[in-house]
């Protein structure tokens, strides 16, 4: 036993020594490279990774890391000074803005893309359309059976995201307009909700349309997208209907918050310009999202010109 302990100690010492040696030699050989750290929206992570990959071909010296932790988590990391850019599928809350300013950070907002949020059910569910009001009742837990919705004698199983998610907050503000039912199952990401609804005939969930349309542009198997109307009198619209996209009730902006105002000539500024370029906007479309609207571009331009 004592011998074992000693060996472990020795091993540990060797490992520690090895690590410190490595970092030393690395520092001497390579110049310090530029690093941009992004974290936040799970919805945006794949899309932003694709953009970052394309950018690294233009500027190989800048290392960009993207993690999908949820919009709320990304904004919290930004406030805590841990990252350079926060991806968010919702806009920053007043409370968060205050906390940021208290920490000496003034987040600068840019609209990177647009996204539609789709409400999904199992493919065997006869439901094809639903109003925001009905959805609100379902997600608050006031409507607990499918009977009044599609005639099936079946309990509704709710799937939603974790509180860290921007999609959670967006759906709460636009649809639920109250507290979520405590019985809702909180899933880790868009994909987890899709997988759960695929297996659950009584399930209902929401996910970014970017996750629901596969790479070939086809709808994923096993799930069904429900058309949505603002109220019973309005038209029911599918998020996949490109011609009516502007009037789809759950269309939102995907934004980024920069911890420091990007200064002209810095890698982070160049990366921002690239994200807004037509090349990056094409990548956004290919990733299943919508490129920014003219009014978004106008807003971005004002912010950009304000940077000096």
């Amino acid at each position, binding site marked *: 036993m004592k011998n074992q302990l000693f060996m472990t100690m020795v091993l540990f010492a060797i490992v520690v020594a090895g690590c410190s040696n490595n970092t030393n030699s690395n520092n001497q050989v390579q110049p310090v490279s530029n690093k941009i750290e992004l974290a936040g929206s799970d919805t945006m992570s794949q899309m932003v990774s694709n953009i970052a990959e394309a950018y690294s071909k233009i500027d190989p010296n800048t290392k960009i890391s993207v993690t999908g932790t*949820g919009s709320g988590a990304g904004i919290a990391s930004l406030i805590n000074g841990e990252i350079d850019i926060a991806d968010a599928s919702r806009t920053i809350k007043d409370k968060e803005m205050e906390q940021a300013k208290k920490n000496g950070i003034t987040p600068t907002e840019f609209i990177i893309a647009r996204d539609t949020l789709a409400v999904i059910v199992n493919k065997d569910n006869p439901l094809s359309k639903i109003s925001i009001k009905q959805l609100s009742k379902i997600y608050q837990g006031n409507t607990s059976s499918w009977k009044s919705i599609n005639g099936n004698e079946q309990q509704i199983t709710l799937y939603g995201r*974790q*509180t860290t998610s921007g999609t959670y907050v967006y759906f709460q503000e636009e649809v639920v307009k109250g507290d979520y039912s405590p019985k809702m199952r909180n899933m880790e990401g868009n994909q987890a909700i899709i997988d759960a609804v695929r297996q659950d005939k009584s*399930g209902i969930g929401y996910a970014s349309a970017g996750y629901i349309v596969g790479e070939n542009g086809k709808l994923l198997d096993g799930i069904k997208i429900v058309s949505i109307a603002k109220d019973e009198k309005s038209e029911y619209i599918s998020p996949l209907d490109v011609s009516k996209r502007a009037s789809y009730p759950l269309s939102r902006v995907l934004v980024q918050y920069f911890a420091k105002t990007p200064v002209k000539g810095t890698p982070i500024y160049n990366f921002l310009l690239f994200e807004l370029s037509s090349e990056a906007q094409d990548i956004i479309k290919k990733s299943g999202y919508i490129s920014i609207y003219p009014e978004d571009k106008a807003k971005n331009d004002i912010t950009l010109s304000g940077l000096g």
Partner: protein
Amino acid sequence: MGNSKNLKEKSIETFFSSVSIITLLVMIGIFVFLFITGIKAFSEVTFGDFFLKNIWNPNSYGKPQWGILSFFVGTLFVVIGSMAIAIPLGLASAIYISEIATPKAREIIKPVIEMIAAIPSVVLGLIGLLFLSPLIAKIFGLSSGLNALTASIIVGIMALPTIISICEDVITSLPKDFREASLALGATKWQTIRMTLMPAAMSGIMAAIMLGIGRAVGETMAVLMVAGNSIAMPHSFFDPVRPMTANIAIEIKEVVKGSTHYNSLFAIGLVLFIITFLVNLISDIIIENHTRKYRW
């Protein structure tokens, strides 16, 4: 010559004692940090609200709510469920390995069981999410298999190696005289195991169970992936649960340092720490008593 040997001895001694002091300091440091951060929560949340209310909703539309009772019950569900699986299986395997298996079988089975401990919990969580939970839903006719039962099975599997290896050690270490005396009196093998070895090993088995409970209380990743994580109070094993560990893991990412939410999560951490500390302490006391009783 003798001097340098002395010096070597001394330096090795100093090395080991300083390492153990560092470990101790780290341990105390963690506790102090946890305590100071966690206790701050109670300047804004009352003890009664925290421990006795069953709704936790920091991002509520109305007033934020900070009750951890349903998380505590969630943890309890997972602990009871996982132990109901791990104790019988673990004890049976330990008896088999120490008393019944041939030396060759033992050589194969022991390392294989210990390998379960080497499986990262996220991998078990993945198996639970993609394989076990649909299976559970099918077997019990549920709409979703993400519930306390699935979490209990996964955690039960994780606690198995701890319980098996400690029980096996305890049973093997019982004096040979016990078996010989029992067999000499005409008892069968099963009677010997049941009436002689089990009572003698009972305190060690209890300690193993305690350590298994500690594992179940502290497990996070796998539970987070398969438990469903609803904040509602669970009423049966088919309900989704959110144990205390899972809640910390889910929400620590979004909190801003120093906020009430942040402090409250640390307060949950403090509760968890105290629970596992007590569980470990009890098992230590039991083991100590056991070794004192059978020191020959």
